[in-house]
């Protein structure tokens, strides 16, 4: 199993191939629908507003060569700090319309989620040197254990699942399903299963 640490270089990303199991460490930022929409509408489609400039710079610094995690966790507050109680991946395809511009604009190298993503993300991974890493859906307790520290949170007003949590993770096991060479493991599996389905359905009358 290959060990990866964020921030990560383009060369290390390009060395990965679809179907490989990796172990990831470093700081990732959670983002779901509201966060994606926010990043794109406030920072990419227009210049950051003056009162959001500082936030933009902070986000940009962390995302450069960094990772976005599609996750809406259950968190618990202990005084000033937060602890992750459960935090598995959420369905990534909902972010398909945003992911390519975020990869390009922020220089994100790693997207973590579940269920895979589509053609636009695949092209962005190929072009800019990024990968999609599939976490095990629902493995919330185990993943919470790989979160060693919640280092901060942006946009808590979006609500607990939608806020942008900064998580220092260690040894999170993931599978590369979209690599930076134009391969999409999910597409390949879907096509192969389609073949089997057609042969099963060829038995007319069943």
């Amino acid at each position, binding site marked *: 199993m290959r060990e990866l640490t964020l921030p990560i270089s383009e060369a290390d990303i390009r060395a990965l191939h679809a179907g490989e199991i990796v172990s990831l460490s470093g700081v990732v930022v959670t983002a779901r629908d509201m966060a994606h929409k926010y990043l794109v509408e406030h920072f990419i489609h227009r210049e950051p507003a003056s009162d959001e400039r500082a936030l933009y710079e902070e986000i940009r610094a962390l995302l450069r060569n960094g990772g976005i995690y599609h996750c809406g966790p259950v968190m618990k507050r202990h005084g000033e700090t937060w602890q992750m109680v459960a935090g598995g991946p959420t369905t990534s395809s909902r972010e398909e319309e945003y992911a390519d511009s975020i990869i390009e604009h922020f220089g994100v190298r790693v997207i973590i989620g579940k269920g895979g993503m589509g053609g636009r993300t695949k092209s962005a991974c190929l072009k800019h040197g990024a990968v999609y890493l599939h976490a095990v859906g*629902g493995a919330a307790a185990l993943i919470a254990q790989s979160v060693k520290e919640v280092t901060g949170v942006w946009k808590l007003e979006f609500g607990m699942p939608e806020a942008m949590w900064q998580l220092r993770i260690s040894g999170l096991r993931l599978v590369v399903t979209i690599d930076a060479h134009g391969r999409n493991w999910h597409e390949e599996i879907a096509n192969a299963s389609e073949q089997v389905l057609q042969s099963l359905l060829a038995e007319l009358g069943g």
Partner: protein
Amino acid sequence: MNTPVIVADLIELIKRTATDLPGPIEAAVIQARKREAQGSPAWDALRVIEENITLARQKATPICQDTGTLNFFIDYPTGWSTLALSEQVRTATAEATRLSILRPNAVDGITGENSGDNLGEGQPNIYWQEWTKPYLRVRLLLKGGGCENMGRQYALPDARLQAKRDLAGVRRVLLDAVHQAQGQGCAPGVLGVCIGGDRSQGYVEAKRQLLRPLHDANADPALAALEDRVLREANSLGIGPMGFGGKTTLLGVKIGALHRLPASYFVTVSYMCWAYRKHELMWHAEGVVEYA
């Protein structure tokens, strides 16, 4: 009679359901891993799932962070007030959320604003049934959004799938549903299926089928045979855990039937992920509560 106060028991039920996966489902995951090639992504995913199940139980934390829609199926003895009970279910739900057993998961249908306590229009969801037994039974099914989104309803005949209005047609649409879902509903999953009913009854009955024990046999031999066949054929599709490829795409298929109008033939599929969280309590008297 006065309806007893069972809030604490309901909180216990919610906690067990969110954190303790039923043994037969865990055993099926372990069996599934043994069928996969060691070290493959499918094998590793199942191992992660096993470790996660054990850890959640040990630490009493949610198995999956999407603690889902709370579906309560309540059978109550004659004389109990469903009004008083539903208030208690709401209180228990809000309290379980405060205790971080549940994620705040109910958002306004229009604005998307999170209510913060899992209460809202239609949440939590309760199905009532009065019965003649002297005790109360509450069955809870937590069903997350990822798998719920993979649910489907077919109106037969279906020209695309050449599915006619018979069990052979049902088989065809069920295999299609599994193929469409790929790994997106957190496979390996379980299909709850209803043949017949109207559109809304179909989805309710499909969910009710998910309350059956994983390894029971359907009382109708034709449906039992169809369940076995669809399970076997779905597992030959090669989708595998999380859609990583592999031998186990489904852990079970549960099919029920309702009467329908002559003009309609719906087949409704409710897809349940591996985090198949369900428990029940039987409340006999204060302090005499059984959990299963």
